[in-house]
C-alpha cells in the first residue's frame, strides 16, 4: 500500500503537471504479459554455434600445461579459443574512465586466481558437444596457497592473488592501499566521549540471481560488422570493452539489448560478449554464450563481501561526536568495480548524520574468490547495515528512543558533510517522523517539530580542524606491470581520441595489423591529484 504525502515539502513543488505524477501504464507491459518483449536470447539465428568455457577447478594455481588434443578432435567442435587468441587479453572495466590498471584476462594464461576462472572457450555445434569437449581438456595445475579472508590478505607474506596489485589491495591515488576520509579529530573526540562503542560487522557476498542469466549472441553481420544481442546493463560500457579487448574499432559492433530480464548490477561486467564475438569472428558463424544457472550463481560476480569496524563516541545526551570506520571490500581476484565502491563508501560516511569528527579508511582487497561487482545499493548497503545497527546500539547505550536518537543526530540543510560538501535538500528527519507516524511509534513533540530545513548550518557548517595523519604511509607506487599490459603509463594522460571514421573497412581478422583502435576511452577521468 503506497500513500503519497503531498502535504510535506509542498511549497517546493509544482504539482500541476500533466504527465508527471500519473500512474501511467508501463510502455513495456503489453509486451511483458504477452511474452513478446524481446530479450537477448529470443533471437534465432541460422547455423548458431554454442560457446562454453572451461573453468578452473582451483582457487589459485599456476597453469603448467593445457592439452586440448582430444578436445580438438571431439565431435562438433569448431574452435577452441585460448588466451593467446584474445587480441588484448588484459582489461579492467573502469579503464574506460581511466580508473585502475588492467588486471584481468578474458582467458587465464599462466595462472588462475579463483575457482571457476575461464581458461578456454569451446565453440561447438551443440551445447552437448561443447560439454563433451570440455571433458576431454586436460589442464595441469600447480596449486598455490590461497587467501580468502580480507584481513589475512593484507598481512605481510600473504599469497599474492593478483600480481597487478602485489599487496592484495587496490592502489588509490598511486600511493595508498585505501581511500581515506578525514574530517575533524576523531581520536580526540573519542578520548572525551561519555561512551565509546566499537563493533565489527560482516556481510557475506550476495548473488544478483536475475531470472535471466547473463549471456549474449554474436553474429557476423553485413559489411564486416558484428551484431551482438546482449543482456548488458551498460551498452556502451560493453561496446567499448569489447572494442578494447578485441582491438577493433567500436563501430565494428552493432549492439542490441535494452530489454533485460533483471540485472541488479550483475550484468555490468561484460562477462560474455568479448568471447562470444571472438567466437563469431573465428568461426564466421553466429555464436551464443549463455550462463547456466550454476555458472551464474557460482562464477557470475556477486555483490562482494564487506567487513566493517566502527568505533563511535557518544555523549550522554545522545549526540554522536566521533565515528571512526575501517572497511574492507572483498573484491575477489580482480578489480571489476569494487575499487569505485570503496570511494563511494568513503563518501557515504558517516551515514546521514551530522557528526563533527569522522575518520574512515576503506580498502578494496583481493582474495581468491569470484570477482565481485556492483549490486543494488553498491558500496552502501553493508555500510548502512553497520551504521544503523550501530545507531540502534548507541541509542540503547544512552537510553534514548531510537527514532528520537536518529532525529537528534540527523543531518540538516546547511550542515557540512564529512566529504566537505554542504548538505542540501535533506529529508531524513521527515522520513523518520512519517515512519513513526505510520508505525504508530510514539515520539515526543520536540522531535515531531524538528525539520530538515531548520537548525542546520551555522556552526554545523564549519569544516573542523583536521590533523594530518601522523604516520602517513609512503607506499611507493606499486606499478608492477604484467606481461600482458601494453598500455604505457603516459596513456593515462592521453586526451580523448577522435571517434573512429564512420565507415571503416571490414576487419580482415580479429587481430588487425593496424595500430590499436580498441583503446579509445570515454572522455574523462576519475579524479586524482595529478589533474
Amino acid at each position, binding site marked *: *500500500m503506497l500513500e*503519497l*504525502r503531498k502535504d*510535506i*515539502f509542498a511549497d517546493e513543488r509544482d504539482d500541476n503537471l*500533466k*504527465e508527471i505524477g*500519473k500512474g*501511467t501504464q508501463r510502455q513495456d507491459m503489453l509486451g511483458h504479459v504477452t511474452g513478446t518483449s524481446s530479450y537477448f536470447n529470443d533471437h534465432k539465428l541460422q547455423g548458431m554455434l554454442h560457446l562454453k568455457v572451461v573453468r578452473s577447478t582451483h*582457487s589459485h594455481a599456476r597453469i603448467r600445461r593445457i592439452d586440448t588434443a582430444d578436445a580438438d578432435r571431439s565431435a562438433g567442435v569448431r574452435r577452441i579459443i585460448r588466451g593467446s587468441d584474445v587480441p588484448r587479453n588484459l582489461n579492467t572495466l573502469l579503464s574506460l574512465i581511466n580508473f585502475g590498471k588492467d588486471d584481468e584476462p578474458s582467458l587465464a594464461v599462466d595462472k588462475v586466481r579463483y575457482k571457476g576462472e575461464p581458461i578456454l572457450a569451446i565453440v561447438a555445434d551443440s551445447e552437448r558437444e561443447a560439454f563433451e569437449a570440455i571433458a576431454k581438456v586436460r589442464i595441469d595445475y600447480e596449486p598455490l596457497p590461497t587467501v*580468502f579472508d*580480507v584481513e589475512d590478505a593484507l598481512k605481510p607474506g600473504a599469497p599474492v592473488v593478483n600480481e597487478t596489485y602485489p599487496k592484495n589491495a587496490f592502489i588509490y*591515488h598511486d600511493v595508498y592501499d585505501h*581511500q581515506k576520509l578525514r574530517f575533524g579529530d576523531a581520536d580526540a573526540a573519542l578520548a572525551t566521549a561519555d561512551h565509546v562503542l566499537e563493533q565489527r560487522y*560482516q556481510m*557475506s*557476498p*550476495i*548473488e544478483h*540471481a*536475475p531470472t535471466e542469466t547473463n549471456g549474449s549472441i554474436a553474429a557476423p553481420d553485413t559489411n564486416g560488422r558484428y551484431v551482438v544481442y546482449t543482456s548488458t546493463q*551498460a*551498452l556502451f*560500457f560493453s561496446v567499448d570493452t569489447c572494442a578494447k579487448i578485441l582491438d577493433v574499432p567500436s563501430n565494428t559492433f552493432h549492439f*542490441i539489448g*535494452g*530489454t*533485460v*530480464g*533483471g*540485472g541488479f548490477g550483475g550484468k555490468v561486467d561484460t562477462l560474455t560478449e568479448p568471447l562470444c564475438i571472438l567466437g563469431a569472428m573465428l568461426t564466421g558463424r553466429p555464436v551464443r554464450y549463455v550462463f547456466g*544457472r550454476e555458472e551464474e*550463481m*557460482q562464477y557470475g560476480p*556477486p555483490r562482494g563481501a564487506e567487513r566493517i569496524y566502527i568505533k563511535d563516541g557518544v555523549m550522554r545526551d545522545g549526540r554522536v561526536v566521533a565515528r571512526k570506520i575501517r572497511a574492507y571490500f572483498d573484491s575477489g581476484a580482480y578489480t571489476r568495480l569494487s575499487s*569505485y565502491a570503496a570511494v563511494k563508501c568513503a*563518501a*557515504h560516511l558517516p*551515514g546521514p548524520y551530522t557528526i563533527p569528527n569522522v575518520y574512515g579508511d576503506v580498502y578494496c582487497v583481493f582474495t581468491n574468490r569470484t570477482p565481485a561487482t*556492483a549490486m*543494488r545499493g553498491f558500496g*552502501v548497503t553493508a555500510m548502512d*547495515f553497520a551504521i*544503523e*545497527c550501530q545507531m*540502534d546500539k548507541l541509542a540503547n547505550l544512552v537510553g534514548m528512543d*531510537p527514532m528520537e536518537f536518529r532525529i537528534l543526530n540527523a543531518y540538516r540543510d546547511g550542515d557540512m558533510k564529512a566529504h566537505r560538501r554542504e548538505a542540501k535538500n535533506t529529508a*531524513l528527519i521527515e*522520513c*523518520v517522523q*512519517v515512519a513513526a507516524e*505510520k*508505525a504508530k511509534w510514539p515520539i515526543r513533540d520536540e522531535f515531531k517539530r524538528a525539520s530538515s530545513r531548520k537548525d542546520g548550518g551555522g556552526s554545523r557548517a564549519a569544516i573542523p580542524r583536521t590533523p594530518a*595523519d601522523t604516520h602517513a604511509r609512503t607506499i611507493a607506487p606499486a606499478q608492477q606491470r604484467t606481461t600482458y599490459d601494453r598500455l604505457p603509463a603516459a596513456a593515462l594522460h592521453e586526451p580523448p581520441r577522435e571517434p573512429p571514421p564512420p565507415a571503416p573497412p571490414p576487419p580482415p581478422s580479429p587481430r588487425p595489423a593496424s595500430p590499436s583502435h580498441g583503446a579509445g576511452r*570515454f572522455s*574523462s*577521468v*576519475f*579524479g586524482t*591529484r595529478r589533474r
Partner: protein
Amino acid sequence: MTRHRGRGIASINYPIGMNLGGDPSQALVHSNPSGKFTVALSSIDLGQGMKSVTRQICAETLGVPVEDVYVDTADSDTGPHCMGSFASRGTHRVGNAVMAAAREARGVMMEAAAEELEVNAADLETDGRGNIHVKGAPHRSISTKEVAIAAQFKQGKTISGRGIFLVPLSNVDPETGEMSPATCYAHACLVAEVEVDDETGEVTMIRMDSAYELGRALNPRLVEQQLVGGAWMGVSHALYETPEPYYPDPIHGPRDFVEYVMPGPGDICPHDIAVLERPAPDGPFGAKGPGEMCANPVLPAVANAIFNAVGVRIDDLPITPEKVLRAIKAEGGARPQARR
C-alpha cells in the same frame, strides 16, 4: 516453545548517480511527420521502468500526451551514449538528458507552430492533449500533427532535439576524501516487525512501515513497484541470501534456486509505504531515484527488530536461523527487550 515479537528501525540516505567520468548520458528525440515522437536511448530497461519513466518525462516536457511518445532503448547504432543502468542514475541522469532533448525539440515545434499560426512562439502554449494554442485564446490552435506536417513538408524544419546530462568532474582528495560524490540524495526510514522462534532461530516478517523521500514520484505505480520489490529484496538480503554460506570459507555454495534461498510468496508481509517528495534542484521534475536505496534500510531494521524481540545482536549478514539460535544459546536464552 516461545515466539517473540520485536520492532526495529533504520534510517538512511542514498547518493544518486556516480562520481566517475562525469556520469554522462545522452538522448535524442525526434518527431515523425504525424507528430509522434521517438526517444532514442542506449539506456537499459532491466525492469526498473526506464522506457516508461523517460516516456513520461519526454511527454511532459514536449507538452504532448504520453501516447504520442515511444522510447526505444539500447541499440548502439541509433541510441546515443549512456553510461548504463546502475547507481540509481537512470531516472536522474537519463531523465535529465531526455528532458534537455525534449526541450530542444519543443523549441522547434513551437517555432513551427508559430509560423503556421502567424504569432510569436513565446505567445504559444501546449495543452498536453496534442494541441498548441495562443495563450489565452484556445481557439487559435493547431495540432502537433499539423505542425509536424508543416515542419516536414513546408517549412523544412526537423522537430528534434539532443540532450546530454553531465556532472562536473569531481576529484577525490587522497588525504581527506573531499569530493562531490553525487548531486542529490534520496532518504528513507523503515520500521520492521518480526517474530523470532527462540528454539529454532527462525525469523518471520510480520510487517513493515516505511517512509521514502525520493524527490518526486514521476510515476507512483513504478515507484511502488520499486519500493515493494526492493523491500522484499532487503528482507531477502537480511535473512536469507548468500552464495557463500560459510564465508570466508568458500564452501557449500548454492547451485540452484533451492539452495540459494530467497523469500517465497508465502514469506511476504504487509508493507505500508509513505512517499515524500522534496524535489532535487537538479533532478528531472525534481526526481531522484528509488531503485537501489529501497532495499537498504530493511537489513538493519530487521536486525534491530530481532534484538528487540530476543535480545541478541547479529552483526553478520545474512541473519540465518542458525546465527540467531547460536546467539540465543550463547546468551542462555532469549531476553526480550522493552516492547515498542
